[in-house]
């Protein structure tokens, strides 16, 4: 994920002429609407593999109403990362409007809302701000130019004599007109051929800590998430709950609905490819009905994946070289003065967003309408069209707020969308399909399980002389529409990111990959490949520092000469944490730094053991994310990623026994809670001209930083995730 976005970055700058770039029209009910022309190019090859849906959606990014309210259509999913605030900030910076007049709406699915360097409408790779950086500022500048021109025309003066500020154009002799009054006239003007964007030193919005504009609705219960649709919004809306097979790939042979039919409120029981759906007037009736179904499953075609067997098998496999992803000379290890051999194991992980998955669908005639919190609208539309058997142009997808997603809604298989469409098509009424927490957790699309084996050597002067790294695990994209773009010469780049492109100047880094085929569905999970590679890299670096008898920060610095950005971030975190200062007895610090999604995050973590219990006291984080568009959000996202990573490091584990997922809810898939939360301080490396990723880069270095602190405190090296906390008590 990371690499794909980075590789495509150079294409992010619109290369079509400005005249093609924007489309302007009068808004229904007056006002100005500005949107991008569909001819905006820059599609990756993979987007062409599937026919682009031609949706009849308004292609607007910006709407100025007669009362001066500015509504920004946000093309990315809002699921916590703050795009409903940060994207409007980009546009507002150029528009010179009154920030309090800004509103944000989630854009529906439409080609115009495609990711600027990806050719599909997608929210991922921590790239929402960076791919909108030029686009939305240009929209704001165009609109401002047109509003000023409209005022100049009205007053019969030169545009140069007018200026725009605070949602108002002022002209000679104290003339004044609000944007709302000018909007209609502005809409009739030709698109400006060229606009000049503000330079960073003049920014008044970008870079300023700005409170979220979606907050008021989220503190009074009015924010509507996908699960919150009712018959008030969609008349005759029914709820469906589905019985899924006990193991992946099994199928229902027959079912008995006798006990279900008597339950009041239940209207339909239907068999699908993916299970048996019970449809009712309310969720509770559907759920009680689903639980009362008696189903006979054919387990034969299903997956019998077993975590214990996989662990043994992966560890064996890791001892043999795989496909070469980066070539070094592994033979040089033989001459090393000291050698580290380290085997790491990371489990399957569920996304476990707070809002369980749902999708609402209405199919009527040859039309299909969806309401879903989607991170990948383009593929969801195509999948829905196929399931509903309607042309893609007849699918309308309304993007709903999502209670988290973390990659689960970048739904390469569109599993829950297809299932919901299948039900709605069968029963002929609008259906909200709800997955219970248990359904959500057992449905797969996990972060894959991985084993890493590292053999690294130090020479006589305690310098790294060779590093032989083998990774074993499933590909995230094999067999999906993303395979073509991600997999090169048999290597899924997302399995190796963070290793082959490490900023450390390691001589003879030799990295190989074994891609396994297991019948457990896998998917992107916050920070993708970095979620496991950083753990192996940064724990091994700590091991090597110890082997070399050097301070972990000083040891890392030696290898960062070519990457000043990484070095600076590491140094900032170390300085703010007082790395060199003494700690009270019984406490220790650990450090880790990692680069991902164009940004760098370093964490210093302070821990102690209290009666055999691990306690996290303090996290000091530094981030270099280029230009920090909204520092409040940047700090929140670094903290958020750290918490997400802490839950995984301390508790996160999906295991399978004879194909059955053993976890189901938060009692056996625990998450970090308030009482365990350490203090967190986030420092942003100043400067930077363009924004880079923020939503994910804080995650990869947190687990190794904790683990390195535990090592510093106890001398115990934890190489399996989640941490075996019981082993620390011994």
């Amino acid at each position, binding site marked *: 994920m990371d690499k794909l976005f980075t590789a495509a970055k150079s294409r992010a700058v619109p290369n079509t002429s400005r005249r093609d770039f924007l489309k302007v029209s009068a808004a229904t009910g007056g006002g100005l609407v500005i949107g991008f022309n569909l001819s905006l190019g820059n599609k990756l090859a993979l987007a062409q593999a599937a026919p682009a849906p031609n949706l009849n959606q308004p292609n607007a990014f910006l709407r100025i109403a007669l009362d001066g309210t500015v509504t920004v259509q946000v093309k990315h999913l809002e699921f916590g990362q703050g795009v409903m605030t940060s994207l409007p900030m980009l546009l507002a910076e150029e528009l*010179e409007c009154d920030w309090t007049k800004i509103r944000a709406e989630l854009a529906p699915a439409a080609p115009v809302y495609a990711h600027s360097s990806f050719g599909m409408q997608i929210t991922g790779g921590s790239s929402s701000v960076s791919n909108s950086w030029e686009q939305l500022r240009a929209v704001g500048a165009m609109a401002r130019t047109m509003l000023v021109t409209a005022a100049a025309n009205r007053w019969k003066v030169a*545009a140069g004599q007018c200026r725009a500020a605070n949602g108002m154009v002022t002209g000679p002799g104290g003339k004044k007109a609000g944007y709302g009054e000018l909007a209609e006239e502005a809409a009739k003007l030709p698109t400006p051929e060229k606009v000049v964007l503000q330079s960073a030193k003049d920014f008044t919005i970008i870079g*300023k800590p700005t409170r979220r504009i979606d907050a008021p609705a989220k503190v009074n*219960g009015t924010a509507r998430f996908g699960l919150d649709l*009712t018959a008030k919004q969609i008349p005759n809306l029914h*709820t469906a709950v589905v019985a899924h097979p006990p193991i992946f790939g099994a199928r229902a042979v027959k079912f008995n609905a006798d006990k279900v039919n008597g339950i009041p409120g239940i209207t339909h029981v239907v068999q699908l490819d993916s299970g048996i759906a019970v449809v009712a007037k*309310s969720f509770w009736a559907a759920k009680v009905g689903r639980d009362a179904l008696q189903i006979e499953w054919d387990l034969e075609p299903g997956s019998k994946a077993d975590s214990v067997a996989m662990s043994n098998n992966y560890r064996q496999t890791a001892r043999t070289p795989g496909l070469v992803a980066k070539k070094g000379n592994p033979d040089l290890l033989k001459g090393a003065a000291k050698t580290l051999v380290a085997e790491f194991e990371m489990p399957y992980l569920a996304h476990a967003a707070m809002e369980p998955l749902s999708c609402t669908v209405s199919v009527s005639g040859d039309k299909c309408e969806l309401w879903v919190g989607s991170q990948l609208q383009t593929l969801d539309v195509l999948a829905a069209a196929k399931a509903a058997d309607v042309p893609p142009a007849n699918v309308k997808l309304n993007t709903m707020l999502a209670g*988290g997603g973390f990659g689960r809604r970048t739904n390469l298989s569109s599993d829950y969308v297809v299932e919901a469409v299948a039900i709605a098509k069968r029963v002929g009424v609008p259906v909200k399909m709800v997955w219970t927490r248990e359904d959500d957790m057992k449905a797969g699309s996990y972060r894959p399980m991985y084993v890493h084996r590292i053999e690294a050597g130090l020479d006589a002067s305690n310098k790294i002389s060779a590093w032989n790294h083998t990774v074993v695990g499933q590909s995230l994209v094999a067999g999906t529409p993303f395979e073509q773009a991600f997999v090169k010469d048999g290597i899924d780049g997302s399995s190796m990111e963070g290793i082959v492109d490490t900023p450390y100047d390691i001589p003879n880094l030799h990295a190989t990959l074994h891609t396994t085929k297991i019948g457990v569905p896998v998917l992107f999970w916050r920070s993708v490949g970095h979620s496991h590679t950083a753990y192996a890299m940064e724990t091994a670096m700590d091991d090597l520092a110890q082997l070399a008898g050097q301070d972990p920060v000083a040891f890392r610095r030696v290898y960062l000469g070519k990457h000043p950005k990484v070095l600076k971030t590491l140094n900032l975190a170390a300085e703010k944490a007082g790395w060199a200062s003494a700690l009270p007895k019984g406490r220790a610090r650990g450090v880790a730094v990692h680069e991902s999604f164009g940004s760098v995050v370093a964490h210093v973590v302070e821990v102690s053991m209290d009666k055999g219990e691990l306690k996290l006291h303090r996290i000091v984080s530094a981030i270099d994310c280029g230009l920090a568009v909204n520092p409040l959000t940047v700090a929140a996202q670094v903290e958020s990623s750290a918490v997400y990573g802490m839950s995984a490091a301390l508790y996160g584990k999906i295991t399978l026994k004879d194909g059955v997922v053993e976890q189901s*809810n938060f009692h056996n898939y625990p998450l970090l809670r308030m009482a365990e939360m350490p203090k967190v301080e986030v420092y942003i490396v100043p400067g930077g001209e363009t924004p880079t990723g923020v939503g994910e880069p804080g995650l990869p270095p947190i687990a190794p930083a904790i683990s390195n602190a535990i090592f510093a405190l106890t001398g115990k090296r934890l190489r399996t995730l989640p941490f075996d906390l019981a082993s620390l008590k011994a």
Partner: protein
Amino acid sequence: MILITVNGERISTNVDPSTPLLWFLRDNLQLTGTKYGCGMALCGACTVHVNGEPTRSCSTPISAVVGKKVTTIEVVGKSAVGKKVQDAWIAEDVVQCGYCQSGQIMAAAALLTKNKVPSDADIDAAMSGNVCRCGTYNRVRAAIKVAAGLKPAASVKPAGAPAAARKSVKA
């Protein structure tokens, strides 16, 4: 026939008495501010007040609230404490995805109604049943302290000010 009071309104219903309060609120009354996260009293997303007590509505059958007063996120702002909590949440920029926040706010409002000056340990005890997958815990803690008057709200300059300072003027 079951009689309950929801947000000050007396309601009679003949739904199955074992129906969890959560689903009665969401599906029958269409009060969707109260969220479903786990259905097992493990996450706190569904927290409402029953006679002022923070209660997991997912695991409370409607028969258990007969004759009682249920308050949800939709009206908690009508009480002085609830309003302070909501304002503090905005001032501290607490929310991320927002899905857990109805439950967090209901738990916090219940805490501050009983305990006007909660210690960190009190906050831990009252709030640890509320999971936030986005990791807003520290801002939740800060907002509770702001609402309790134990800490000034974070000062954030409104975006856009001062617009007049812009040197270059572009048309």
